[in-house]
């Protein structure tokens, strides 16, 4: 039967046998196996045979799962902490608001009165002081106090404690003292010049200066 020969080579079919004989030239040759032998040099260095891919996969899967659980835990913890911190933040904001309103009220009560009085009495206080140095010192104290009370009450409340000790005793360095003296000298010269101008304007006759001999 022709069909049998095509399927399992039982019987005969001249036509198919002829085709087989013609195409036999392309058949695979055994000696090519030698080429493969040269490619198998790394056999002994291969990793341990067995179910390496499966083990690798299971290990990778386990590590990824652990990592995912860890990330989830950290995220959960972070969320819980943020919830607590929001409550604490609200409480602290309320406390701060209470404190600031209290300090504002206190500062307003304590600082506004001395400010106005200081502004009014600066000149008299300075004039009543004894020596020039004492006058300068008292003037600086008063100026400092006034300028401090001009700041916002909140800032003043923060700075007040640190500045409190400095108010009692003012210590100048040599350079500061020199600069201050120069400033005062300049101011006095300016004031005397202004006085001359004012006298001229008021019609007071200038005292004639003696002329130099031979000029």
């Amino acid at each position, binding site marked *: 039967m022709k069909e049998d020969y095509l399927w399992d080579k039982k019987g005969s079919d001249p036509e198919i046998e002829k085709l087989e004989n013609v*195409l036999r030239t*392309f*058949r695979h040759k055994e000696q090519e*196996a030698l080429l493969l032998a040269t490619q198998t040099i790394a056999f002994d260095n291969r990793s341990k045979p067995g179910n*390496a891919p499966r083990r690798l996969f299971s290990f990778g899967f386990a590590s990824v799962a652990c990592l995912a659980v860890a990330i989830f835990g950290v995220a959960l913890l972070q969320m819980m902490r943020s919830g607590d911190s929001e409550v604490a933040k609200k409480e602290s904001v309320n406390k701060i608001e209470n404190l600031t309103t209290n300090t504002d009220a206190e500062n307003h009560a304590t600082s506004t009165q001395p400010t106005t009085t200081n502004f009014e009495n600066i000149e008299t206080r300075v004039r009543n002081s004894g020596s020039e140095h004492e006058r300068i010192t008292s003037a600086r104290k008063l100026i400092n106090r006034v300028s401090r009370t001009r700041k916002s009450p909140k800032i003043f409340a923060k700075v007040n404690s640190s500045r409190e000790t400095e108010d009692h005793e003012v210590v100048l360095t040599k350079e500061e003292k020199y600069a201050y003296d120069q400033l005062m000298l300049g101011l006095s010269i300016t004031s005397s010049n202004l006085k001359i101008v004012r006298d001229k304007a008021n019609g007071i006759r200038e005292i004639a200066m003696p002329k130099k001999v031979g000029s």
Partner: protein
Amino acid sequence: MSESKPITNLFFWGNRETGNAAKTKKAAVNADLVERFRAGEQDAFDELYKKLSPLVHGIVLARVPRDEVDDIVQEVFISAFNNIDSLRDSRAVSSWIAQIARNRTVEFFRRTKPTEELSENLSNSDSRKTNAHEILDVIKTMPETYKETLVLRLVEGMTGPEIAELTGLTHSSVRVNLHRGMRMLRSRLGIKE
């Protein structure tokens, strides 16, 4: 009779049991070779190569130019050698290597520009060999399933059950491919049945 008409009278259900038993036995032998190779026996892979190289050669020959066939066959077995650990069912080693071979041919055409093979008539006066090239070229123009089965049958000299066993196809599929392919080849070569 048209070429695409199903050939139902060729299915021999009585022989199917014995065929499957033989198939199982050979698959077990191949699986044993794979396990021995995994255990460190290099000779087992050589034996596997001897058993499966005609299959790989036939699959590659049906698709790529003849000059490239041997190199691709070597590449297929090197790939199998390096990736044998990724084979889960060692009983399916032949169909696994067959699939590697098919993938390699696809890869070959992807990385190379299409070329036209020179006719053997120009340099070869051997009419028998020229005839062989012409027949092979005609087979290569046929559909994938037909040409692979025909090359394995006519070039590599395998029987239908052997082709079914090695490729992992059913006997009926191989039988249909063989007969339809043969009919198509006859018609293209101008041979009357």
